[in-house]
């Protein structure tokens, strides 16, 4: 990736702008940028959205042109478009998960919304679980989503048969196998409040699972495998 503001001959690029190869050039740059942003600890949401929209726009243009173009080239483009869609989905999902997990402290909704607050808590928790489910399904490689699927596959009881795990039991340690809520329920959410104590519940689930996977790791070391 070039350094910022580096002066270079612009004529080479501008000549390539004509025709399909220019589209490929732009898509390649988009993919590179998305990959680079993914590696950053905190990707820039504004830029990611702009790049994602540019790619989506190209995808929709591509669909219009597909019948006209060379079929071999088509298949190459199709492959890269799918990668791009997955990359975009995973990045946006990741951003949501990373960003919204942090609960602001001491936040209270507006006065007349008070009575509905507890009802909202339940809804928000369901949304967070749905987001988790979504994150697991996506192409991207996000650590926490990996560990949740790992734990789903294991029979936890078998591993810890001879160990007292009562201190790790928690009300929230149920498997995240709830059916995803239908999208309409999420949009029916009557109020927008800050995800205060709601997402701390979601983060408790994550902390539980992390502890269990760490325990497993320790066990492996002790057993000497």
């Amino acid at each position: 990736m070039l350094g910022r503001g580096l002066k270079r001959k612009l004529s080479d690029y501008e000549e390539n702008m004509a025709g399909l190869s220019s589209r490929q050039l732009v898509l390649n740059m988009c993919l590179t940028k998305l990959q680079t942003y993914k590696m950053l600890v905190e990707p820039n949401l504004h830029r990611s959205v702009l790049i994602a929209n540019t790619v989506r726009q190209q995808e929709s243009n591509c669909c219009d042109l597909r019948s006209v173009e060379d079929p071999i080239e088509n298949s190459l483009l199709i492959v890269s478009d799918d990668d791009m869609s997955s990359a975009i989905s995973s990045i946006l999902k990741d951003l949501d998960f990373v960003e919204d997990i942090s609960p602001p402290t001491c936040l209270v909704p507006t006065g007349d919304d008070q009575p509905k607050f507890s009802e909202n808590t339940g809804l928000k928790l369901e949304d967070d679980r749905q987001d988790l489910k979504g994150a697991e399904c996506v192409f991207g490689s996000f650590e926490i989503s990996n560990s949740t699927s790992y734990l789903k596959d294991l029979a936890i009881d078998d591993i810890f048969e001879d160990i007292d795990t009562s201190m790790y039991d928690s009300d929230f340690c149920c498997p995240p196998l709830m059916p995803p809520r239908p999208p309409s329920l999420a949009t029916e959410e009557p109020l927008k409040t800050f995800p205060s104590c709601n997402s701390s519940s979601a983060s408790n689930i994550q902390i539980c699972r992390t502890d269990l996977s760490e325990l497993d790791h320790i066990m492996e070391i002790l057993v000497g495998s």
Partner: protein
Amino acid sequence: MSHKQAGGPPGESAVDWCLYQLNGAAEFEVSEADIISTVEFNHTGELLATGDKGGRVVIFQREPESKNEPYNQGEYNVYSTFQSHEPEFDYLKSLEIEEKINKIKWLPQQNAAHSLLSTNDKTIKLWKITERDKRPEGYNLKDEEGKLKDLSTVTSLQVPVLKPMDLMVEVTPRRIFANGHTYHVNSISVNSDCETYMSADDLRINLWHLAITDRSFNIVDIKPANMEDLTEVITASEFHPHHCNLFVYSSSKGSLRLCDMRASALCDKHSKLYEEPEDPSNRSFFSEIISSVSDVKFSHSGRYMLTRDYLTVKVWDLNMETKPVETYQVHDYLRSKLCSLYENDCIFDKFECAWNGSDSVIMTGAYNNFFRMFDRNTKRDVTLEASRESSKPRAILKPRRVCVGGKRRKDDISVDSLDFTKKILHTAWHPTENIIAIAATNNLYIFQDKVNSEMH
């Protein structure tokens, strides 16, 4: 490439601008922390605040005119420097929160003290700036060093008197508005009611009361239920200068939404949507990216809004939603270079814009340390440069010109020679006079109208 923008005679300005002062180290001494990230005059223009990437705020105060020192009149001298924000670490997300000051907004002055709001990506702080130029002397129980006196030596009572002392400027943090934002704060705006203010991040806008830090109201939320559906973010927002119920926010898709807080508690539904249909002849891969609005400012009159996107500045009439009333090309010669600018990320640069006091001239920055001014009445525009080499103190700034092929005159700069690392993102215009503050990397340039400065 049409020549209508860069061809023709160099723009002339009705005002002759000259460099008044330059603050900041020479360029080879720049450290990242010194890069100025925001500039703002207060409501009278007496004070000028700058914020930098290192989290510091520097306040300049204009010297009052005095006949004794004719050459120092109107000069902005450093009044106070303080560390507003420190780098923080978010342990839950393992993220460092930058201390860079994104925005500073002054509160209208209500007593002898000055107050301003400064914000980084996450936390907004209210600072109070007070002067102390007297101190009490003659305490009965304490001596001059503050030590308690031996009571047996006290034979009479005296009333402490206030004696003058060297001016001391004290800055104290009065409020810290934390934990209101999940995403990065891009704007803050003080309401005309002087009691509330709003802060906007990529997806949400919050309304705060200046006296209450543990609570804020969410008034705009554009976060979709499914983040995969996210296609638009909030890029800037501002309260109307006179109507305390109205505010505007701009988006990455180039639209403006005017919202009325009286309509509902949550202003997700706009009262007015300002959007210009895309010009099909200008369509490119990057059409959407360059339409993203980087700054929005109400005119002083409150009748118009000024927006800046990558290549243009536009004036919108609040009464007309279908298109802007005026569009000015800032650097249309870049339109054919968008691919390279996308590659080096320059296409994402966020330029600010500003009105002059009478709303007749608008200003915005560009590359190569150029900045542009557009006179709305005469339709003339001018390109000026903020650089040490071309700015002799008190000498009138020479208009610059970018040539795009065709006839090239002496002193013209060709598009390919522009330095894209020298960008003027932050500019401010004095509320009433022709004085402008331009931030070029770590340097603060203050230009004044030659006539203005000669009068003093």
